[in-house]
């Protein structure tokens, strides 16, 4: 028989806090504060003998923004991000729809197909694409065997290879939010539209598509942000010809020890991402306005 326990009001309020404080403290100390470090670092001066110097300057920003090489890489990175986002949406939506509506008994297996690339690791997946896209790789071999090409195509170390691999990497990231969204749409809505005379196509465009806009919005933003900041895939497959901002930043930090300049580039990339996403939100706001 336990002794009757009285809990003081203070204990009742503060007791549970012990559950959340460690996590919050960890994130604050090692996630929030470090981000201030980037901002501070970007204003520091460069130094020949150390990663960064003692005083502060704006020069890294001005140099980067006026350098055509750097801006070219930024433009390519954004273009790549846009392209990858569009392609994953076009390829991913049908898969998400199929997975949401299919009654096949292979549904679980297909779900694994979508999920497992995510968990296999970026280096491994990009390596897989190297095998396929290299000069003697599977793709070129197949094309030659089918008689479609005379000499191997340049599928790697350029924008094409990076695009293909990035699409592969981020397809699950668009399929999964879409899947959740479509599954939540009441199937009777589609039946209702058909009973009112709408063909399958019309039902899709007038009912299913509008109602899946939140999923589309979430998925495309996720894929865009992730693909413009991707490092591993452009680094392994892009070579010198298809450098992206992340590759350049890491080069500055690790190879050249130019930390302030690297920080400035990272911030420029982050800022561009935020602006693009905000614009996108504004433009698509109308489409989700009508939804519950």
């Amino acid at each position, binding site marked *: 028989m336990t002794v009757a326990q009285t809990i003081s009001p203070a204990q009742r309020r503060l007791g549970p806090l012990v559950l959340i404080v460690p996590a919050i403290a960890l994130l604050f100390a090692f996630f929030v504060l470090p981000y201030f470090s980037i901002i501070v670092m970007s204003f520091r001066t460069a130094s020949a003998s150390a990663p960064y110097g003692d005083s502060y300057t704006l020069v890294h920003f001005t140099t980067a923004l006026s350098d055509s090489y750097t801006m070219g890489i930024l433009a390519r990175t954004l273009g790549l991000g846009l392209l990858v986002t569009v392609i994953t949406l076009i390829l991913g939506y049908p898969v998400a729809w199929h997975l949401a509506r299919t009654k096949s008994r292979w549904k679980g297996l297909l779900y*694994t197909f979508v999920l497992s690339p995510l968990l296999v690791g*970026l280096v491994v997946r990009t390596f897989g694409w190297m095998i396929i896209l290299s000069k003697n790789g599977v793709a070129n071999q197949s094309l030659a065997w089918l008689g479609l090409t005379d000499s191997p195509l340049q599928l790697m170390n350029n924008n094409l290879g990076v695009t293909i691999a990035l699409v592969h990497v981020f397809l699950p990231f668009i399929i999964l939010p879409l899947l959740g969204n479509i599954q939540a749409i009441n199937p009777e809505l589609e039946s209702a539209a058909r009973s009112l005379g709408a063909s399958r196509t019309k039902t899709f465009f007038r009912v299913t598509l509008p109602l899946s806009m939140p999923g589309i919005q979430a998925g495309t933003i996720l894929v865009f942000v992730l693909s413009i900041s991707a490092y591993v895939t452009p680094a392994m497959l892009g070579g010198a010809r298809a450098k992206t901002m992340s590759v350049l930043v890491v080069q500055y930090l690790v190879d050249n020890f130019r930390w302030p300049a690297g920080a400035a580039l990272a911030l420029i990339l*982050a800022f561009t991402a935020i602006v693009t996403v905000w614009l996108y939100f504004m433009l698509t706001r109308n489409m989700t306005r009508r939804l519950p």
Partner: protein
Amino acid sequence: MKQSRSATEVMFLTIVSAVYIFLMAPIVLIVVLSLNSGEFLLFPIEGLSLRWFGELYASQQFIDAILTSLQVAGIATVVSGVLGTAAAIYCVRHAGRMRGVLRLFLMTPLLIPEILTAIALLFYMYQIGVGTSYSIGMQIGHIVITLPYVFMNVATSLFNFDDSVEEAARSLGASPVVTFRRVTLPLIKPGVITGCLFAFIISFDIFNISLLLKGVGTTTLPIQLFDYLRWDFDPTAAAVSAVSITMTLVAILILDRFVGLRSLRF
């Protein structure tokens, strides 16, 4: 069935099938090629052999890298597991109006690109004087990235949890601690296990943070593979990858048996 498939249906299913194949192709290729008895990463494979796994086993670098990855992932999983579960319990049960804000905050490491977090931690570690010594920064980075996964999975299983079970226990005389241990914990175990498994796999695959924050002389498996591929392009890399893939597959199978893949949250 009298209804035959229309042309659009056929086209649709073809596209969908093509995408499924596209998703699995590189992974399947790697596994096949890792068993190649020939020297090159080419098709068709010459024969079946485990020689490249043997090469992997003999390579001290790779073995060290695997062990480091396992260690880092293990520590990250334990720390994230405890912190994330506690945070989830607080958020679902005690947070009240702050719930939405806290949830968003705890999820932010997932929403922000990992490369930026890696850079931020690098600068921060140096500024507080720790630098990359002992790879502490790397370990912390792994914990920060894996925490949201645990939090999310535990929080979800708590949402589906019926409070009245705890109230019943209390009315029968169980103290809060006993209730937690004998009623709550067993019921949220699936969520905790899912979250921890996720944390482990994610940590094992982390690249950007490991790249920037690893100490001298340490390396994790993804980094080692990345470096290897800069110079060599042979089936050893495929063997390494196959090991990584197998680990993931085992983890997925465990998850599916335990909780069913459909209940996972990202």
